[in-house]
């Protein structure tokens, strides 16, 4: 083979092998599953079609900082919290939302501070869970458009995770059994019709404090970005996420931003270090400016989402349930002050539960039929 032919052959084979790897990851390593592992994702998927949903997305500060029944009583609209870990990338969360939100829905984003500065690097906990034995977060990967899937496979997904699945394939029969047990658990949780049924929390106490939160001052934990390096800068990733949100808004989804809920600890107050306070305020102004310039509204101010040490549950971002109720009331006051009133929906929270229950029952019938 001549050198030029050899080079062409190398290029072609490289492309073919890369394509083969991408297909393997897409179809074999991270296949789509009918039943999501997190309850919050089940709530999101199973309530598609319920008119005028209010969907709250962020890291877990929303799970621990918002009381859904309070919102439902005030707005007379079905509400779900779909927030999970803040380590998961916002871009993937938005693509996932894009597949499940409909015109007339409202999206509220009380994003943790780091979402405004996050880069392209993904957390190890995220890349591991996307392809773990339960496929805990496969829905994020499978919600991505093809180019973003390729970006994930070739620049962000560790080869070791793919290799471990290829060398030790999953048992899909076991996954199906686990799905059915999980659906039963989801249906029981729905029946409770409390804050936890809609993605929130009911805890008033915690057995332990997160070790990292225990070791760090609040401003270091919440604003590590601001402390050592001066004022933080909005990341390109966040700016491109704003463009994604613009697509959602153009499709008829109302989008509102809020500050995350934080609670002081007895040993450390939040937004308290003089040096970081200056940076935080300047950075917050940049965030609001960027969000507003993209055509969205920022509701409330930082202090309205800041609570005392009696509200601390287990990290600075987690409030006790009674404080979550207070925070939700403050949130409603902020919406009213801004003149934002969400129109009543024809669907109620009961409609949402009925739809979600039907979805679960249909899934169970499908698993039963596949076993026959």
């Amino acid at each position, binding site marked *: 083979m001549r050198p030029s032919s050899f080079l062409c052959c*190398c290029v072609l*084979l490289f492309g073919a092998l890369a394509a083969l790897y991408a297909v393997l990851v897409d179809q074999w390593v991270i296949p789509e599953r009918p039943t999501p592992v997190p309850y919050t994702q089940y709530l999101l998927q199973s309530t598609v079609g319920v008119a005028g949903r209010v969907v709250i997305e962020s890291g877990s500060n929303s799970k621990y900082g918002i009381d859904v029944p309070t919102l439902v009583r005030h707005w007379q609209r079905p509400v779900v919290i779909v927030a999970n870990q803040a*380590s998961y990338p916002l871009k993937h969360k938005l693509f996932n939302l894009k597949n499940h939100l409909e015109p007339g829905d409202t999206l509220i984003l009380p994003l943790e501070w780091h979402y405004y500065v996050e880069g392209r690097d993904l957390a190890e906990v995220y890349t591991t869970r996307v392809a773990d034995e339960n496929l805990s977060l496969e829905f994020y990967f499978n919600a991505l458009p093809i180019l973003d899937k390729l970006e994930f496979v070739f620049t962000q997904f560790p*080869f070791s995770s793919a290799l471990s699945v290829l060398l030790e394939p999953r048992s899909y029969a076991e996954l199906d059994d686990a799905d059915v047990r999980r659906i039963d658990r989801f249906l029981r949780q729905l029946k409770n019709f409390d804050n936890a049924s809609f993605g929130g929390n009911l805890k008033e106490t915690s057995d332990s404090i997160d*070790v990292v939160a225990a*070791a760090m001052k609040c401003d270091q934990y919440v604003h590590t970005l601001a402390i*050592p390096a001066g004022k933080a800068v909005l990341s390109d990733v966040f700016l491109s996420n704003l463009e994604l949100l613009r697509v959602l808004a153009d499709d008829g989804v109302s989008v509102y931003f809020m500050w995350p809920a934080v609670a002081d600890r007895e040993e450390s107050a939040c937004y308290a270090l003089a040096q970081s306070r200056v940076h935080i305020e300047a950075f917050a102004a940049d965030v609001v400016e960027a969000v507003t310039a993209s055509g969205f509204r920022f509701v409330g101010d930082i202090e309205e989402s800041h609570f005392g040490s009696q509200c601390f549950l287990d990290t600075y971002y987690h409030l006790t349930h009674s404080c979550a109720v207070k925070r939700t009331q403050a949130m409603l006051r902020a919406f009213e002050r801004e003149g934002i009133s969400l129109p009543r929906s024809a669907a109620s929270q009961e409609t949402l539960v009925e739809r979600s229950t039907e979805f679960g029952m249909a899934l169970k019938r499908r698993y039963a039929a596949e076993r026959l």
Partner: protein
Amino acid sequence: MLGSMFFLGSATMSEEQSTVLEQLFPVTGPSHWVAGAGELVSIVPVLFITVFALVAFFARNSMEVSDKGDRYTVLNALCVSGSLLLALLMGISASSSVFLYFNF
């Protein structure tokens, strides 16, 4: 170092907390947190080793070339492209950056 800088004067930190902080702050400054930096750093040595391994395996001196002529085959091309892809894939690593560690 950064972790200890945060906690100068704190005498109450447990061993568990110290370990967590050492894991969180393995290097000494914000440059470590620059998006993509870890990825780039991990790719470079792998690519370097791969290229030199390929050269060592396939390279021939002028006598060999004149004696045996050109003997590259599709299998050689497969080895080169496969090795390159493998090196690229093995260079991808998830970040354990401080922003991405927290369990919230």
